């Protein structure tokens, strides 16, 4: 659905995106993660033809992103955290304006979404809360059943309750409609329930692109107990991230976990004096934090 090849985009001295290549498969929810300033929004703006890439190519819905026009936008739904909406309009006026723009606007679906999102039609957008405003924007981007939904930090600034509602609604719809969703966030917690795949961007480059299941299978939190006054060796395997020793306990993240036996063998090889170890599965959030820390250290 989206193919990004060697994307480069520079703003004066800052290289926002530096050779990003990524594929977003059809029918899946891809979480596009990265710390603030990693280049997520720039990538999304490039793929929607809001920014012109300096180098590289982006294919969206089978066509060049630079040629995206009204015909393609009838199949793309886009919601961004900093999108300027016609705040002077009521919710009804807003939908009335959007409706004629889309030949495939589904009014019944619009009503269903209205009920689902519980939006007050007579209220002006400027009088709505931020969460409700995002819901209105989402509704205006979904009611025509787009093939591709692009969400740029849709949850930032929302309180947990609203975020949960929003995510739940989106999750239900995605499951129902089988949409391709490309959602960016700087916090994996927001999207871990949604995402089929996770792509992580760091300093404008793709750091990881994997399904959630594979990611969760690959990462483990390890605690090793050492004898008294034994220090862990300095050169531990590179797959073991953030090794930290506190007293007799050495903690690290195994990023290439295969099975218990292989881990035990690796532990024996690296720390022969280890007396005991424990293995724990990690949440996507923990994996993301571990990776983010690792990237930061790499950068230094």
């Amino acid at each position: 659905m989206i193919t990004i090849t060697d994307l480069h985009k520079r703003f004066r001295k800052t290289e926002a995106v530096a050779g990003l290549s990524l594929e977003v498969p059809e029918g899946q929810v891809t979480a596009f993660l990265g710390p603030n300033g990693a280049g997520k929004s720039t990538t999304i703006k490039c793929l929607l033809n809001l920014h012109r890439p300096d180098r590289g190519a982006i294919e969206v819905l089978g066509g060049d992103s630079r040629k995206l026009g009204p015909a393609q936008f009838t199949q793309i739904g886009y919601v961004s955290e900093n999108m300027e909406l016609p705040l002077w309009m009521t919710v009804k006026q807003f939908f009335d304006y959007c409706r004629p723009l889309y030949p495939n606007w589904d009014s019944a679906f619009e009503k269903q979404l209205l009920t689902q999102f519980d939006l007050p039609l007579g209220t002006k957008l400027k009088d709505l809360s931020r969460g409700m405003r995002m819901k209105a924007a989402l509704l205006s981007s979904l009611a025509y059943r787009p093939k591709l939904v692009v969400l740029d930090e849709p949850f930032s600034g929302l309180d947990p309750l609203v975020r949960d509602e929003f995510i739940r609604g989106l999750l239900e719809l995605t499951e129902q409609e089988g949409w391709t969703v490309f959602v960016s966030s700087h916090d994996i917690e927001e999207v871990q329930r949604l995402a089929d795949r996770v792509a992580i961007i760091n300093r404008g480059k793709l750091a990881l692109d994997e399904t959630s299941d594979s990611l969760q299978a690959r990462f483990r939190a390890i605690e090793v107990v050492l004898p008294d006054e034994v220090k862990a060796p300095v050169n531990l395997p590179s797959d073991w991230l953030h090794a930290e020793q506190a007293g007799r306990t050495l903690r690290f993240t195994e990023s290439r976990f295969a099975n218990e036996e292989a881990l035990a063998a690796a532990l024996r090889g690296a720390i022969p004096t280890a007396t005991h170890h424990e293995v724990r599965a990690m949440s996507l959030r923990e994996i993301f934090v571990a990776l983010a820390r690792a990237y930061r250290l790499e950068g230094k």
Partner: protein
Amino acid sequence: MNLTLHHFRKEFCYLRLRWFAFLALLGFDLAVNLEWLLPMRAGVEAPAWLGYLPVMILLVGLSLLLSCSEDRPGSDRSFISTRPLPWAAYWQARMLLWVTLIVLPVVLQNGLYLLLSGRPMADVLRGMGERACFAVGFSAWLLPALALWRRREVWKALFVIVVTLAAASKVLDVASAAWWKFYPSFDQTWAGLMVGWMVFGGLSGWLAWRHLQRAYRFRRRLCLTCFSALVGLLAARFWVLATDRELVAQDEALVRALAPGLKVEIDLETVHFEGFESEFGAHTLSAKPETETGKPGVHVDMRLAGSRVVQDGKTSSAKASSASIIRSRYGYGSPQDQVHRGDVNLRDFFPGGTLFYSAQPFPLWSWEGRSIALAAFDQPYPSAEQPLKLATDYHMDWYQRDLALELPMVAGSRAESDEARWEVLSVTHAAGPQPGALTITLRVETRDHWNEENGSAMLLHSPQRQIVWLDPVKQTMLGTRATHTGWQRRQIELTWNGIFNYADGEATGADAAKLRLILLRSRFLGTSPYTWKSPEMQLADFPSVYGERYAWHESRLLYGGRQMKAFQERMATFKPLTADSSEKEARRALYELFSTAGVTGAVYVPAAFPAITQAFDPLGKEHLPLLLELPSSLWPGWTNRPPRTLLDRYLTDDQREAVIDRVIRQPGLADVVVRKGWAEEAKRLKPRLLSGSPLPRGCEALLFAWGDEESRARLLQAAKHDINRGIIEELDKLPPMRPATERIAMNGFEKTLPMTGSESYLSGMSVSLAANFGSPEAFDLCLRWMALGGDLPPRNGGYPQPHLLTADGGKFWEKERKMPDHEKWPFFRRLKVSDFEYVPEKRAWKFRLP
């Protein structure tokens, strides 16, 4: 189209409140312009805030185009950027908004105003067209600006563009001032301004389109926009030069009908030449032509198009500078300038004997015929010493003047013409800066379209006193409505001094109801071609103004009262000249003598002449050829008596031929030749002096000495164009010449416009000459002019002084000098022609009573 209207509806929905406010402002403006609200009343000044109303309308109008930030194209945040609204539909909707919400209401409001003001349909349509250009020009540039700039960028861009334009404008002004042929700065017009704005709008549109295609960075957009603004500025400035200066002919059919009958007379006696010595100017040969169109109220102005010079069988052409090729709508030669030509405009409309009075020391009005260029020479110059012939092409610009409005000076009186409507709202006596002033409040409605061609002047005529006041002493604008609509309304307070009382307080006896307020108008009819062919002539025969000296006013003030002593003291500090002194030393001594005599002002003090003559003496004695070379025009005083005395003293018969040879180039020597008794020998100069070229100033002495028929005829010819030269009085002493001299004096009077002001010296000279030659009308005019003596503005040329004799035959003016002003002016006022008898043999008027 559906999406266009759909988006238009959305925008309109957003803008409607602001648009209604805009309409309300336009409605208010219309009501104010039509004076349904805040009407102009006598003595009531308009509220100051009314002046800001057009600005407010403009700002609210422009704000309609800056709406809906969520729609801003080119913004990565705008809601519309990822919606399937085609750009064509978006821009069509914007254009529709612009036209229907801004341009159309503004144009309709103007049309409505003109219709309700009773203007003819042609004027209504023209006014609406001009207003459409105005609205389009001032707002079109904002349409692309939306696509070019994001929120904060707008202010940065605005600042940089304004600074760039201000700097560029200044550079253009300086360039205009420094390079006189290049003056795009000063003649700015509305049409030019609109063109500039539209060019800027067009280029911005192109830039916005490119930006949407290629996403230019801010710096690049800024540079390109500044460049567009500069192109717009140049377009606005140069538009005037390219097209806008050309006047629109208003009656070419009349020009075609009158052109064959046009009579042009160029008397070589009036020709003078700038010379090739000057580093400045166009080296022009000029003359004062006399033209006769054959139709009263119509005159022509001659404009040099180019000339061909034939010398030694070779023809060279001299093109006129661009300034003279184009008839300007502004400045010199414009209809407004033409209306102030008293010589062609005023005489036809007022009875003979009318005195034209200007309160200004340097009035805009002129009465002497204007000089025109016969040729403007470029390098390589023709030889000044060789004969040449000229064929000069002219554009003859035809003007018609008329008294467009005339109304009595009574409150409530009205008059109307096709392009103006006047109403006197109030008349107040003695309310001006002086007693006897007249102040009126006048309501003026005038046609006020762009590039208006007609010139106009406001005159006050008192048939009772036979005076026309050419300009009010004070003019105050009390209120203006409907500026630049095509029909402007103003309320003006005008004041003339000395209407009911003279400056000393004595009543004039004038009746306000008998005064007439007049609008004199000058219309440009069209242009016809004309070619003048000269006889064979030499440029060297014509007097050159180059090298004339100016009075040393500041130095004269410094040495006031002790000129002779200062001269002597300073001369004593220089090394005395002896027989052994070299020519170089002699020249230096001459220079020092000149500068000292000039700087100290001794040249203006007759008592100092002996001292100056004494200082000259070594020069005359030892270096006489140097004095012979000295052109009389270089002498920095009004007499060359000191050097002349020395020439008389030291010239001998040996130098006779050399002196005679120099007479044509140094006419001051003619007098010396006559006094030395060499007039017979000088007869070899006769053919040259009798030829058609101007009689060199000073050579009349030779002609008088010869005294034959031919010489007298030549003197009469010279006197015709130079009545202040004294030739006519000299000729008049010869009884056979009297009828001819009388004819010249009377002709001069007929052509003269008796006008006070800085030029009144020459004007008064003609009037007093005619009075001296026995014209009762001229004498009556002199008396009335003299009666105004106390009212004449400072630095005025004074009043004419005809020859007057006291009852016992004494010279009146010698006694007059002893009269104090407070006695003099009332004395003059009581004089009538009947109080005098004319004494023809003395060419003077004699008091009947003591």
